[in-house]
């Protein structure tokens, strides 16, 4: 038995979806913190200039696409 298979989730067949959801949870938590820092800077120092508004949209759309891919990935497993 290899050291990794000693863990319950590391059965040779599959990893439970819970593990993926946990990883996703950590990622979304970090994303939320990073986004709030960016938001604060864009709002406070960027003062909603045209470029800031545009870049905020791009950021949101891109992030949502990547997060959707991650969620889709978990559901398809």
């Amino acid at each position, binding site marked *: 038995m290899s050291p990794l298979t000693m863990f319950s989730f590391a059965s040779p067949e599959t990893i439970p979806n819970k593990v993926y959801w946990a990883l996703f949870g950590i990622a979304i938590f970090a994303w939320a913190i990073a986004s709030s820092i*960016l938001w604060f800077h864009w709002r406070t120092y960027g003062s909603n200039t045209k470029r800031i508004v545009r870049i905020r949209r791009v950021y949101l759309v891109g992030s949502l696409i990547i997060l959707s891919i991650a969620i889709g990935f978990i559901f398809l497993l």
Partner: protein
Amino acid sequence: MNNHHIEDTKLQPDKNIRKLINLEEGEQVLLEARRHMFVLYSRITFLLMLLIVPLVFVPTTGTLINKITGATYGMQIVSFLFILWCLFLWVLFFFYWTDYYLDVWIITNKRIFDIDQQGIFRREVSVTNLERVQDVTVSVNGIFATFLKFGDIHVQTAGSQMDFSIKNASNPMIIKETIMRAHENLVNLRNHQTNTI
């Protein structure tokens, strides 16, 4: 002096730029100067490397995990982690962009605002009166700087220990010209006002 002198559209101030600073009465924004996009592009290249290099190793790592554990999920977990890695790089790009965008020089017909964004949690805003400007130095070093038209600008002010400089500024000669012309106009205006009195 107005914005028609500035041929480069990138240097023309955003209509909302006045939201970033508090302008005095009769004060007009002449120019908005930032570091050259080359600075941002070099960071984007770094991010692309961080994206492409792991992509090459996804199949290898997946297979390796399968071999070590005797499992079949190696590829799945590595692919999933790669998606999360993409999210991290995406966020990192916007941190870089924010650092680039918020680091700006705003030149008005009365003052120079040097907003220095160093990373995310360090920010310095210095203001100097154009009348105090004594000397403007531009230095363009290297092949990229020469062909892509960017360089360092240093403004020497009277009686101030403050260092007014912007590194890798886009079109430094236009910025220098704008500062010198605005300085001249302001000094002429002051002289005219003194003579009239």
